[in-house]
């Protein structure tokens, strides 16, 4: 996917207690938060940013059912149609004896499917190169990247972030690609959410 060059104003916060109100104020002021990069899962930050819930678990459920039906279907077809074996005169359709394998395949399909879906959605793969806004985003800083539009005055925005408590502020230019992620549709506007 062809990407353009985009400008971002980046603020680094060192405390989640400062980060939360900052996220709120930035959104209230009408700026579009591209993303916040954190060294660990900060609970409630997704809500604060107005991200919608993930439906990864629904995908997991669908994979699980696929596993169940694959296992049951496969074993029934083999033991009743393709090659019925007489095992000690027991019924060909031996449902109770198939429970262990059915269960294992349910779990296997669900786990493998979910991990692959997770990697696909987050665009994670061994040789993917992404733009990293700050090297300490995986250490001890919370990095907020705000996308600049034509109308954005980045000097103002930098001041705004500094007042909101950012320890470091800078402007970065990154070539957008699919790996930057597009959360435009993910994020609800602050106004919509609060109902005004």
């Amino acid at each position, binding site marked *: 996917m062809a990407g353009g060059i985009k400008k971002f104003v980046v603020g680094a916060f060192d405390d989640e*207690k400062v980060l939360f*109100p900052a996220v709120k104020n930035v959104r209230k002021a009408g700026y579009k938060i591209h*993303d*916040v*990069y*954190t*060294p*660990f*899962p*900060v*609970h*409630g930050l*997704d809500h*604060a*940013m107005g*991200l919608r*819930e*993930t439906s*990864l*678990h629904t995908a*997991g459920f669908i994979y*699980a059912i696929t596993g169940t039906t694959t296992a049951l279907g496969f*074993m029934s077809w*083999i*033991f009743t149609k393709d*090659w019925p*074996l007489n*095992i000690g005169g027991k019924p060909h359709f*031996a449902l109770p*004896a*198939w429970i*262990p*394998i059915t*269960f*294992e*395949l349910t*779990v*296997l399909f669900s*786990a493998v499917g979910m*991990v692959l879906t997770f*990697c696909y959605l*987050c665009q*994670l*793969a*061994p*040789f*993917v190169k*992404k733009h*990293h806004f700050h*090297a*300490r*985003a*995986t*250490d*001890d800083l919370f990095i907020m990247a705000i996308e600049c539009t034509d109308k954005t005055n980045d000097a103002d925005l930098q001041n705004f972030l500094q007042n909101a408590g950012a320890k470091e502020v800078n402007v970065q230019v990154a070539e957008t690609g699919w*790996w930057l*992620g597009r*959360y435009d549709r*993910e994020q609800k506007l602050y106004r919509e*959410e609060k109902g005004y």
Partner: protein
Amino acid sequence: MSLLKYESQLREPLVDGNKDYHQVTEDIISPIEMKPSKLWYVGFYISVALLIFGAYSVYREVTYGIGQWNLNKTIGWGWDITNFVWWVGIGHAGTLISAILLLFRQGWRTGVNRAAEAMTIFAVMCAGQFPIWHMGRVWMFPFVFPYPNSRGPLWVNFNSPLLWDVFAISTYFTVSLLFWYSGLIPDLATVRDRAKTKLRKMLYGVASFGWTGSTKHWQRHESLSLVLAGLSTPLVLSVHTIVSFDFATSVVPGWHTTIFPPYFVAGAIFSGFAMVQTLLIVVRKVMGLQDYITLGHIEAMNKVIVLTGSIVGCAYLTELFIAWYGQNPYEWYAFSQNRANLFSPYGWSYWLMMFCNVVSPQLFWSRKLRRNITVTFFMSIVVNIGMWYERFVIIVTSIYRDFLPSSWSTYYSPSIYEIGFYLGTFGLFFTCFFLFAKYFPVIAVAEIKSILKTSGENYKAKMTDIEKSDADKFYIEEVEHAH
């Protein structure tokens, strides 16, 4: 603003010392960036030597056949299957810690889960070796999988517990590996972003899959971990249940018991935690991680050991009672003569098992002993010896005197290549563990950071402020943050 989740001050801190986020990274990642110590090399080379001896033993067995082992017609399962069940059992603690304790919201899990999961994966790898090489004609190994083939296609027997085992063990290995690695990705990214050398940056860059720490990614990561934990919880219970079916669905006196599934699962957790203790007591000392793997963690695991050890003890007594109460002469003979009679050929192994698994863990009712590192280390070895003998007792004492007294076995003792194979799996296990300890973060860095402000020693004091503050105000602030 109170973003801190409230946690009672009565709870022991999970992270000792005056830590901030950066310090946590520093403490856990820096051993990766340093040259390994002399002790590491010594340990690593010993492990590799054992691995080579194991490989040679396996070579002998494949080339000359199963006759290289001292198995015979009566004792068809000996050290190989004993070792298989033993290793699988050890491989249960990791997933229990990371999955079941995650669902139970046990914060202390964060200090030990990474190493325990790694141990799980390596133990399952070792376990898998035994049934595979026991096949004798190992080149026919792929026949255990149901794939379309030119032999009919002749399918596998889906009604056989041995096939259930194939599915259980391979699923367990795959899911544990995925769970472990998905948790590792953010931490590998931390190593990548700190890397000073080009090579390290490149290698950890590849290994961390380009992780950025985006909020949306974390949200999905959390969802993934939770569902994987939910899936792994029944999975971990199913694996040893299915291993126990290998025995329980047979008609051999001593194996044919319905108590086996819960009894095997409890035993697996028991031995798994013992192995975690053995490894972590060494790791925390050698790598200086006492602040993260605290006495509190060791005590918590000892509590699990005394609980599961006692469950195992109850199971031993129950099966003994039922063998008598059931009035089946063969069953009762297997228990009263082959096992409980100290003067029968293998009586000593039964009583050794009883002592190691049932009597000795009772020491851990004492808080002082639970928090004593030397005692814990010693006990972890005792428990693992005991659990090895449990499997030996179940397997060998049930089959060495079968229904036909003329085929009652002469005394079975392993050949040097049987022992060599077992030692070889130790080599495999420790080679992998040494490499893991050197190249991977042995503690889940991101998870420690996420509990630091509720359970870190230096943050604990701040709970007083929350305790004193107005309850209504606290509620409003919390609610406001949730949206």
